[in-house]
């Protein structure tokens, strides 16, 4: 069994490398499709043809884009992400701090939202059809019906402007102590949890109900096992596949999709970095960010697939 999983992981990692290569090419061509290049963008309103030509030459942009892409790819193999066109700094340096920030936020949000989503989803499934269940279902839909920027703005208005409990900006420069850390993360985490939990709650509930309906759970019930025990010992492990899948999709959002939260709370994460990179046509930076989003997404779904396979013996043999 372990060998099988190991083989599968190795295979998927191999496929992942190929996917990454494809993505790198796709992003490269997409960037090429975008009008304007970094020299024009950097010069902005002062972009006269001569100035643009001069700057292009100085930045070695007069080489064919494809060659630059290949040299970036070559650098990547040796672990060198290249230098940003926009400010001539090491891409690795630019990304490192911001990636750490993004991962921190994603981690805290996961820590917060996953247990809540699981609890709500499972309990709603256990008491299917009850008022509680309906409440949870209406609640989740309402929560995602409110635009993210509105949740964030409202949260800031209430907690920062009127109550003055929390800071309006989430800048973790000189954080002292866990209390302050919590204060700083509170609002972005709440906002993000609103966004990502709904899907997880709904899918958890659906998956648990699905397994609760199957014969062997009925059998366990006949044998006299208690309800919580049935859910936790029998239904949950079998429902794990779809749950983890929904989680992977939700959590993958936490890295690249949090641009609104990063903007409103002025949180320096990778999503904003990528937007910047796109708007300055900063090829090495765009590529590196795209790779990060890709790797994280593919890793998450790999984990989800693995859990699904391990949890479902029928799939194990295929």
């Amino acid at each position, binding site marked *: 069994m372990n060998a099988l999983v190991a083989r599968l992981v190795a295979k998927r990692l191999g496929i992942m490398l190929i996917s990454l290569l494809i993505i790198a090419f796709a992003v490269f061509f*997409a960037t090429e499709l975008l009008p304007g290049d970094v020299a024009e963008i950097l010069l902005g309103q002062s972009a006269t043809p001569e100035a643009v030509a001069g700057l292009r030459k100085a930045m070695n942009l007069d080489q064919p884009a494809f060659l630059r892409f290949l040299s970036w790819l070559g650098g990547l193999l040796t672990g060198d992400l290249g230098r940003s066109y926009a400010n001539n700094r090491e891409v690795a340096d630019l990304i490192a701090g911001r990636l750490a920030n993004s991962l921190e936020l994603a981690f805290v949000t996961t820590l917060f939202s996953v247990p809540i989503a699981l609890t709500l989803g499972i309990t709603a499934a256990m008491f299917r059809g009850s008022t509680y269940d309906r409440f949870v279902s209406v609640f989740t839909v309402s929560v*995602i019906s409110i*635009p993210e920027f509105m949740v964030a703005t409202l949260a800031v208005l209430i907690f920062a402007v009127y109550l003055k409990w929390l800071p309006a900006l989430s800048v973790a420069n000189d954080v002292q102590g866990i209390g302050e850390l919590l204060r700083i993360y509170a609002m972005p985490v709440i906002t993000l949890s609103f966004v990502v939990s709904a899907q997880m709650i709904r899918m958890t509930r659906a998956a648990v109900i699905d397994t609760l309906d199957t014969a062997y759970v009925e059998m366990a019930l006949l044998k006299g096992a208690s309800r919580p025990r049935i859910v936790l010992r029998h239904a949950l492990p079998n429902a794990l596949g779809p749950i983890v899948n929904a989680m992977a999709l939700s959590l993958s959002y936490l890295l690249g999709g949090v641009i609104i939260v990063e903007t409103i709370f002025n949180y320096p994460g990778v999503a904003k970095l*990528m937007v910047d990179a796109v708007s300055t046509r900063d090829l090495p930076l765009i590529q590196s960010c795209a790779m990060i989003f890709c790797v994280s997404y593919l890793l998450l779904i790999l984990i989800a697939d693995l859990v699904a396979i391990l949890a479902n013996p029928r799939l194990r043999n295929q």
Partner: protein
Amino acid sequence: MTMTAPARKGHFGFHVNAVGIIGAAIILFWMVVAIAAPWISPYPVGQIVDFDYYGPISSQFWFGTDYLGRDMLSRVLMGARYTVGISLASVTIACFIGVTLGMIAAVISGWFDAILSRFLDALNSIPSLMFGLVVVAAVGSSISVLVLTIAVLYAPGSYRFARALAVNVNAMDFVTVARARGEGTLYTIREEIFPNIIGPVLADFGLRFVFIVLLLSGLSFLGLGVQPPNADWGALVRENIGGLSFGAPAVIVPSIAIASLTISVNMLIDNLPQRIRDRSE
């Protein structure tokens, strides 16, 4: 012949309960509004009718005025057209593509499944903002481009979801029986797989619909889609968000409109006839 059958009674007609009917009624209401909007709007959407801004609810302006002093009622009515139309069209296309491909991949499996899955995973991991920008740059902007862009952005998620469900169903013996009988792929998908994933697929459809309603406002800021002076509801909330601190109707009303639509779509789906959502609501 002993009847130890479960106590659940069968439904043969489409018995939608009261909650579902309310949901359907609200959706229907907004659809009618979307169609009739140009005739029932009291003012042109772009006209500045009041020099005051973030105006309150009054007999002249039922939903107040927006940040420029335009009539909110007219803007919300016309917004229904874009929000309902674009969201429904794109979610339908996305789910149709995603679910169809997902079921095919699950049934055929093998290399077809592997290649399609990897390809769509890769597509899914490209940030949507970047994707939107490239689309505008490459083909310009129009409503149909917007619908297709959103469909492409959401189809991979729908695919993954449908495929995961279909793989589970595909492992069931009744599918094996159909295969042993010599049934073709199309029949297996249509008759054996699809009816068994329709419940969760519909739930997923509802969620995706909600996400698209909200995504629209973001894309319009990329210059993709609804052109001024028109705006979808999400964009209405966004452009008037400054009025939130004093509870301006200009930001509250479109938010309520969004919530009423998305909640009722989900209310309807959650309360669809037992037969449809039986498997795995």
